[in-house]
C-alpha cells in the first residue's frame, strides 16, 4: 500500500523546502504532498489514491494538518501541492481523532471489509456508535470508475445517484456493452468488491458483466525461451481505447513500444539449419476417444502443461472439475502406428507415458492404466526406467483402447469416464472408470513444412519429414548445399537425440564457415554465351535455382556454387547452349563410342 514513488524533477521547476513531522525535506514546487511523504517513508494511509490516476481526495484518510502563512488547516495529502516553508503534521492529535471517527463511520457500513478492518484496528477503533448496516464491500473510493473512464477510456463504469445513495454501476445497471474486459477495475479495487471470473471462455467482472480475455501481457509459459512478455493487442486496453499505457510507464528499461509491428527481417546467410520441430497429432477426428467432447480427455502435450509448475494449476494435477484424480488412463499410439493416420512410430510416446505414470503416482497416488501396443524403450537407461515404473504398481494393459465414453448402463460416478480396452494378454475386454484420459499423441511434421520444403529446395521422405542427404554419411545435410536439418524436422525423436543432431548440424555449418571456401561440384553446367538466346527455359527447370538471367547480356548465367550438376538444364536447353563439364558432346560421343566399340567388334 505504501508503494514508493520516485519523484523526478523537471529541470525548470524550482525546489522548495518545508517540514513534515519535524523533518526538513526538499521537493519540486507544487508536488503533491503524498509523493514527498512516501519518498521519505512517512506513512499516510490512503484508500482512494493510485499514483497512476489523478488524485481524487474522497476517502479523507490522508488528511494532514498544514500550517501555511500562519494559518493551520486540514488538507488531503494526495492532492495538496507543496509550497515553500509549509509545516506539515501527519499524525497529530487532531488528525488521529478525525481519522478515527472517519474509520468508525466506515466500520458502520463496511464492517466486513478487510482493508477497513485493518485500518480500524491500527487506529484502535473498536466500538461503533452508529447504526450498523449490513456490510457493503464497495467503499465508493471511485478507483474503478476513474481507471475505467480516465485511464482505460472504456467508459463502462460510473457512479449513479448522489449523497448516501451514491453507488457504482454501469449505465442503467445492466451489462455494459462498452466494457472491454481489461480487468483494470478489478485490479485497482481495494476491497475485492469487483471480481473477475471465467465464464463461457470470457472473463467476467462482478457476476454479470461480460468481459474479454484476461491479462493482455503474457509470458507464454514458465520455461518459454526467450522469456519475453508479449502484448495481446486484442485485449490490450491501449490498442482499443488509446488509454492506459501503464506498462510503458512502469517499465524501468523503456522496453515497451506500442508502435512496434511484426516485421520481415532479411538476413543474408551462407548456411541454414532447419529445426522447424513438430506438431502434436490432433486426435479430434478419432471420435471414439471423445477428445474435445469429454472434458476428462486430454492430449499428452496438454497434460505436460498441466503438470508443469508454471501451468494453470501451478503443477497440481486436477481434473477439470477441480478434483484430484483417483484413476488415470494413458492411451498409447494415438495417430502413430496406425494405417488410417500415420504408419510410423513416433518414438517418444512410450517414454513420455512412462514419465507421466511416474509423475501421477508420485503426485496423486492415483491408479494409472497404460494401454499400449508394444513398449518401445530403446535408449540408454530407458529399459531401467520402464522396470522402475513397473515396480510402482502401474497397470500395463496390452491392447488398443476401443472407446472412451461417459455412458455406462450401470451408471458412472460423477466426473468419471469409462475406457473400453481389450486386454490381449488376458484375452478379455476390460471397462475401467477413470477420472482422466491422456492420449499419447504422435509427432507430425510442423505446419508449414511443405512451404519450407519448396523454399529451400529440399526433399521430404514419404512420412513428410525432411529428408537427409544420406542416412549414414550425411545425416544432417540435405540435397541442397548449405541447408541442414536437425531435430523433429527430420523425424520423430526425443530430446537427447535432438540435441545430438543439432550439435552435429551446427558442427557441419561451422566446418563450412571455418573452411572459408565452398567446395564446388566438379561436374557443373556452363552456358555458352554465344549460343544462348535468353529463352529462360533453363531457369524454370533448375531444381536448385542455380540459374539466373543476366538482363544486360540477355543470357542465362549458372551459379557454380549452387549447381549440383544434375544436367537437367543441359537436356532442356532448346539451343544446346548449356554444356556440362565432363559431359560435353565429344566426351559423351567418346563414351558412346567406347561402349559401342565392343559391340561393333
Amino acid at each position: 500500500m505504501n508503494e514508493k514513488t520516485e519523484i523526478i524533477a523537471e529541470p525548470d521547476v524550482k525546489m522548495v523546502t518545508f517540514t513534515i513531522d519535524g523533518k526538513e525535506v526538499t521537493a519540486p514546487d507544487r508536488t503533491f504532498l503524498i509523493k514527498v511523504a512516501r519518498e521519505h517513508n512517512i506513512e499516510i494511509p490512503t484508500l482512494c489514491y493510485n499514483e497512476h490516476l489523478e488524485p481524487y481526495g474522497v476517502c479523507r484518510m490522508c488528511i494532514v494538518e498544514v500550517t501555511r502563512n500562519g494559518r493551520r488547516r486540514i488538507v488531503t495529502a494526495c492532492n495538496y501541492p507543496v509550497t515553500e516553508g509549509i509545516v506539515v503534521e501527519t499524525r497529530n492529535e487532531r488528525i488521529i481523532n478525525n481519522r478515527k471517527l472517519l474509520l468508525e463511520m466506515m466500520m458502520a457500513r463496511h464492517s466486513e471489509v478487510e482493508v477497513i478492518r485493518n485500518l480500524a484496528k491500527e487506529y484502535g477503533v473498536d466500538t461503533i456508535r452508529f447504526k450498523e448496516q449490513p456490510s457493503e464491500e464497495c467503499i465508493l473510493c471511485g478507483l474503478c470508475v476513474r481507471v475505467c473512464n480516465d485511464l482505460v477510456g472504456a467508459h463502462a463504469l460510473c457512479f449513479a445517484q448522489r449523497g448516501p445513495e451514491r453507488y457504482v454501476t454501469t449505465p442503467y445497471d445492466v451489462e455494459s456493452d462498452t466494457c472491454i474486459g481489461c480487468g483494470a477495475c478489478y485490479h485497482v479495487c481495494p476491497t475485492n468488491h469487483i471480481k473477475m471470473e471465467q465464464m463461457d471462455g470470457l472473463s467476467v467482472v462482478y457476476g454479470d458483466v461480460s468481459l474479454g480475455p484476461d491479462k493482455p501481457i503474457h509470458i507464454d509459459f514458465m520455461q518459454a525461451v526467450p522469456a519475453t512478455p508479449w502484448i495481446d493487442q486484442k485485449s490490450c486496453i491501449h490498442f482499443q481505447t488509446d488509454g492506459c499505457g501503464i506498462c510503458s510507464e512502469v517499465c524501468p528499461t523503456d522496453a515497451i513500444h506500442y508502435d512496434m509491428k511484426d516485421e520481415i527481417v532479411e538476413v543474408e546467410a551462407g548456411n541454414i539449419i532447419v529445426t522447424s520441430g513438430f506438431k502434436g497429432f490432433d486426435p479430434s477426428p478419432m471420435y471414439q476417444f471423445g477428445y474435445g467432447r469429454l472434458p476428462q480427455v486430454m492430449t499428452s502435450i496438454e497434460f505436460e502443461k498441466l503438470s508443469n509448475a508454471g501451468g494453470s494449476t501451478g503443477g497440481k494435477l486436477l481434473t477439470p472439475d477441480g478434483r484430484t484424480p483417483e484413476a488415470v488412463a494413458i492411451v498409447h499410439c494415438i495417430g502413430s502406428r496406425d494405417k488410417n493416420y500415420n504408419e510410423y512410430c513416433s518414438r517418444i510416446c512410450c517414454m513420455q507415458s512412462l514419465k507421466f505414470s511416474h509423475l501421477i503416482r508420485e503426485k496423486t497416488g492415483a491408479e494409472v492404466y497404460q494401454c499400449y501396443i508394444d513398449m518401445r524403450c530403446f535408449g540408454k537407461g530407458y529399459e531401467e526406467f520402464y522396470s522402475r515404473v513397473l515396480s510402482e504398481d502401474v497397470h500395463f494393459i496390452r491392447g488398443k483402447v476401443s472407446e472412451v465414453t461417459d455412458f455406462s448402463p450401470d451408471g458412472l460416478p460423477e466426473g468419471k469416464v469409462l475406457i473400453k480396452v481389450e486386454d490381449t494378454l488376458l484375452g478379455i475386454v476390460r471397462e475401467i472408470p477413470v477420472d482422466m484420459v491422456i492420449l499419447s499423441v504422435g509427432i507430425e511434421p510442423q505446419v508449414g513444412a511443405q512451404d519450407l520444403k519448396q523454399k529451400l529446395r529440399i526433399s521430404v521422405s514419404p512420412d513428410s519429414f525432411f529428408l537427409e542427404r544420406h542416412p549414414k554419411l550425411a545425416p544432417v545435410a540435405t540435397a541442397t548445399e548449405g541447408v541442414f536439418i536437425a531435430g523433429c524436422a527430420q523425424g520423430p525423436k526425443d530430446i537427447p537425440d535432438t540435441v545430438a543432431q543439432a550439435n552435429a548440424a551446427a558442427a557441419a555449418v561451422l566446418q563450412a564457415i571455418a573452411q572459408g571456401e565452398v567446395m564446388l561440384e566438379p561436374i557443373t553446367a556452363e552456358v555458352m554465351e554465344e549460343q544462348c538466346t535468353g529463352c529462360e527455359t533453363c531457369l524454370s527447370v533448375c531444381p536448385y535455382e542455380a540459374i539466373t538471367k543476366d538482363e544486360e547480356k540477355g543470357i542465362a548465367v549458372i551459379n557454380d556454387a549452387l549447381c549440383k550438376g544434375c544436367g537437367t538444364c543441359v537436356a532442356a536447353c532448346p539451343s544446346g547452349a548449356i554444356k556440362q563439364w565432363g559431359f560435353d558432346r565429344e566426351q559423351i560421343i567418346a563414351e558412346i563410342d567406347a561402349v559401342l566399340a565392343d559391340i561393333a567388334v
Partner: protein
Amino acid sequence: MLQVEMNKKKVDAELDEMLAGYERDRTEVIMVLQDIQDKYNWLPQEALTYVAKNWQIPMTDMYHIVTFYKAFSLKPRGKHILQLCLGTACHVREAPFILDALERDHGIKNRETTDDGLFTLETVNCVGACAQGPILIIDGQMRGNMTQTKVGGIIRKLRKAHKEEVAENE
C-alpha cells in the same frame, strides 16, 4: 423488437428537429436534457442514447448526470405533477404535515407516481415564494398557504375530473 426500433427512429427524428438550435457542445448537455424532459415529461433511454451519441458524451457520464440532478426523471411521470416546497420557510410552516397527508390520505408518495398514472409527487427546495408558504405547485401553477384540508380538496377535484374525462372518452 420492431416496436423499439421504430420508436427509436421516431425519437431521433423528433429530437433532430427539437435540438437543431444547439451547437452540440458539452456545456449544453444539462439544458438539452431539460428540454427533452419538458417534451416527454421524463427521459426515455432512446433520448439519452441520442444525446450521448450526438454530443459525444460517454453513456457513463450521461447516466451519472441524469441520476445526480434532481431535475431529471428516468421513469415516466404522472399526468399531474405535484411539487411540494419543503424549503425552510415552508418547513417551519408545517409543510411536512402536508407531505404526510398526501401519502396517508391520498396514497401519493414522495418521488413516486401513483398506480393510475395520475399523480407524481416531488418535493422541491424553495421556489422563492416563502411568504406564501407552504407552497404546492400543481402542473406549474403555484398555490400558496396550503393546508392538509386544502390539499385534500385539490386532489379530490383532480381525481373527479379525470374520472369524468375517462367516462366521456368511453
